[in-house]
């Protein structure tokens, strides 16, 4: 058995991450997809804070298509949570992924956020 030495050539795309916000009635829905890490968490945070600032009722954060999420994403969510509390805006996280659930649990955030497993459930939770 021999160790392979891998030559890595990186592509031009900076991390497979997308985030956008749209509105359903008075609810803002921020949808993130792909991988959230320390390089993309800043963009995620920016979108969340803008969604909270532009809302006077509820922001639903759709994480259903997030593939991996590290502690920098948790930091962004906590910042948004703090801002939402100041502005009296409700923040609801939507995820059904056991890895994200475990990540939230380990960081002790599962009791901080209102969580739902689907967008329909998040809508009903309002």
């Amino acid at each position, binding site marked *: *058995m*021999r*160790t*392979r*030495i*891998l*030559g*890595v050539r*990186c*592509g031009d*795309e*900076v*991390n*497979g991450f997308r985030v956008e916000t749209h509105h359903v009635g008075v609810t803002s829905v921020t949808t993130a997809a792909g*991988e959230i*890490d*320390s*390089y993309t968490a800043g963009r995620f945070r920016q979108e969340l804070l803008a969604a909270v600032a532009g809302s006077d009722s509820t922001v639903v954060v759709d994480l259903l298509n997030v*593939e*991996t*999420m*590290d*502690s*920098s994403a*948790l*930091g962004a969510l*906590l910042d948004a949570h703090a801002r939402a509390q100041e502005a009296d805006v409700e923040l609801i996280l939507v995820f059904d*992924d*056991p*890895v994200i659930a*475990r*990540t939230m649990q*380990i*960081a002790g955030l599962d009791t901080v956020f209102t969580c739902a497993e689907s967008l329909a459930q998040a809508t009903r939770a309002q």
Partner: protein
Amino acid sequence: MPSDGDPLRAEFSPDTRLLRTIRAVVRSYCREVGFTDDVLVRGLLVAVTEVATNAMDALARIGSREPVVVECALGAAGPRITIEDRGGGMPDEVLERVRRGERIEGSEGLGVGLQLSRSLVSELSIDETRRGTRVSVTMAREIAA
């Protein structure tokens, strides 16, 4: 001749694509060795991302452009990913707190990165090398996520 599943070693220059590329390499290696449980693989990827971020931060702190070295190997329990940097290593006090699984207050972020990694994988070990830190994470096939 090396073949699929043999240990793999890669060096990554610290840049904005590093984390994603490391995840792609680890994901590919897991597929090669037949470690395909999606939940376990993604748990491993989160742990690897946390460790690699720490390595990048350590290098940035001392202004180093030394590469981050990633090794993938298949142990008896499952894939083992080792990430090594030459970022000067952790202060003894921080290392001791990490080994006890405590949060590192004052660090950037939430200070839960290694704590999170340790909880997501079946084994995490940290060795201080002469010039930096070497962290290995192992994800056992049987572990419950």
